[in-house]
């Protein structure tokens, strides 16, 4: 009994440490982002906000193009999410359920798209997008991000679908479901947590991606392309404000998607 409780204690300590590992930097960034400038330059920096000021944050938000770029970033991330799920999930399902010629080659081919460093591809990519008339638009960035995210989406979803026994689908079909119906009513709900994880990854990838976004857009920048490259040359207050600003929407998205993830964990724990 005693040993059991000790291991529980250690588990909790570990969990708290891990949580702090993530939360403390976020907290410090938030405090600094809402502090007046002279406080930020002080050393040592205060751990708790002594004065709250929106000065830096407001300057950051008001500087031209930031709000627009936030809107574009969200649109791009959601588009990326939608397209890569619409394409990636069926592809993953096919890989998990069907044996077809060239299946292994297909698997390798998917991953190999990530083998090319995008820096080398930047000029040809920009040239093709210009020729297609998609240059400097939200769609071009979303397509590019989809291409970057797809390998992961396909591989994750295929392993997620593989974890659902075929028996369940077959049982559903014997009870009158069509193939599609079995997928829709049986496999999909069971794989929702895994799909949510893939969605988070896709969203965050798109949200953080700078290079493709920077090269494919000029006036219609996403937030990271707009500010990330200049943040390390900016004064300290802007780094905190920018860092905070880049952080928040991703956090909010994860909060939404989290309940699906908990389904997965809940099932495993029970």
């Amino acid at each position, binding site marked *: 009994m005693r040993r059991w409780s000790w291991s529980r204690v250690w588990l909790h300590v570990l969990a708290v440490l891990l949580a702090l590992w993530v939360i403390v930097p976020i907290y410090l960034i938030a405090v600094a982002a809402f502090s007046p400038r002279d406080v930020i330059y002080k050393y040592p920096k205060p751990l708790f906000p002594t004065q709250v000021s929106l000065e830096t944050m407001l300057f950051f938000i008001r500087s031209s193009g930031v709000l627009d770029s936030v809107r574009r970033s969200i649109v791009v991330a959601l588009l990326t999410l939608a397209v890569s799920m619409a394409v990636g999930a069926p592809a993953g399902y096919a890989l998990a359920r069907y044996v077809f010629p060239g299946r292994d080659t297909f698997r390798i081919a998917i991953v190999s798209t990530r083998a090319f460093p995008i820096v080398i591809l930047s*000029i040809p990519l920009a040239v093709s997008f*210009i020729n297609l008339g998609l240059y400097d638009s939200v769609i071009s960035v979303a397509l590019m991000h989809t291409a970057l995210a797809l390998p992961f989406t396909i591989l994750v979803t295929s392993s997620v679908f593989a974890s659902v026994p075929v028996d369940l689908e077959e049982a559903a079909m014997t009870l009158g479901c069509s193939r599609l119906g079995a997928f829709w009513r049986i496999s999909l709900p069971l794989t929702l947590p895994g799909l949510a994880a893939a969605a988070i990854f896709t969203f965050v990838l798109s949200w953080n991606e700078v290079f493709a976004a920077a090269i494919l857009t*000029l006036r219609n920048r996403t937030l990271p392309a707009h500010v990330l490259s200049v943040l390390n040359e900016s004064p300290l207050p802007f780094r905190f404000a920018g860092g905070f600003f880049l952080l928040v929407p991703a956090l909010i998205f994860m909060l939404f998607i989290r309940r699906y993830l908990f389904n997965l964990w809940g099932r495993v724990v029970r």
Partner: protein
Amino acid sequence: MRRTILIPLLILLVALVVAACQQQQAQPPTPQVIEKTVVVEKTVVVEKEKPVEKTVVVEVTPTPVDYGNVVILSTQAKPIEEQEKMRGVVLADFPGTPEFIAEDEGVLIDRVVAEAQAGKGSVDVIIALHGTFPVLLAEDTLMDVSDLMADLSDRGIPEKFVELGKLGTDTQYYIPIMQATYIFAANKAALEYLPEGADPDKLTYEQLREWGKNMQEATGEQKLGFPAGERGLMHRFLEGYLYPSYTGTMVTGFRSPEAATMWGEFRDTWQYVNVQSVAYEFMQEPLLAEEVWVAFDHTARLINAFKERPDDFVALPAPSGPAGLGFMPVIVGAAIPKNAPNPEGAKAMIEYLTRPETQIAILREIGFFPVTSVDFPGYVSVGIRKEGEAVAKQAAAPNAIPALLPVGLGEKGGEFNKVYRDTFTRIVLNGEDIQTVLEEEAANLQAILDATGAPCWPPDPPSEGPCQVK
């Protein structure tokens, strides 16, 4: 438990952001475009039998010139605050709609090259350091702006800078629009120890040594100072000032007889240099502390001395050597891509940037010095004005030799600098044999040049293939 803390926290964050957004809507930061109406009043006296006085009011509205959208892509003024100042102040009076976009050098090059290959451009003006333009020219992306340069010939851009904008060809490819550089700063107390007949604005390195000697004899202290500390910019002094002044080159004359003479003289000068120089990084501090009276550094690293005690310091152009006045300008130029959608607007923008009032605005807002001849008005702080005048004198000196920041070394730039610093340490500080050190370090230098394949850059004459130490 975690949920109960996290959710209110996030709601708070969202609320803050929303609050911020609302305030943003209340005060949109739109840069004001002011249309000016000129009213000319004329009094005409008509003399006839009955003298009648009649006032004729003629209203003249300048034809509203609108150059439309001008997209400016810049590797300079990148920090957010500086971007805002460019948009809100520097470019505010341009007759058109400027769009200022700051970008990393690599992305800028890729974009301009891609737009050239696709045959459809969206960028009108490129603002970048001199070193960026040879790369763009190699890809044949730059427009010939010789006509524009001819139109701007009255702006007083130093001939040497104009020449750099030709990138070693006969065609003007970029137009210099602003600069930063390194100069000397001197405490006024030092001026009385100047060698006899020396003009502080036209010193030679020999006179600098004499000056140091006089100061030491008078005060018993070594009053010259150089930023030879670890993060100091001593290598720029060696590469861009000492070497060109004695050899007329930075690289090719590395182990020449002139270079040997130069090192001998500089070692001799060093006895009057404050021994703490090997630890100095920003010379404004030892100047303010009066540890040294005369010091060399980047304008940005001297400015506090001028700002805090403007009456105590003077800014001086660098001294000259046997070959001329070597100095290192950090030149920022403006170019137009070949397939710019709005070339007329782009030309108007470059013309606008070189206007005296814009040059002053650039200096005040983002700290780059004018390239044109500009009278510094009273509202520029005294410190900046002093530096600016020295910068202008240095660049316009008849014997000036602009030595550019290394071009084409990429990540090897640090190793390149190390060669110069090592040579300095071995010859001047350790007293090793000059010719031996020069031979050995020349080999290191050549290895770096070969590895990068970098051709010579000014002041060295252009080369086929990698630059060669003679």
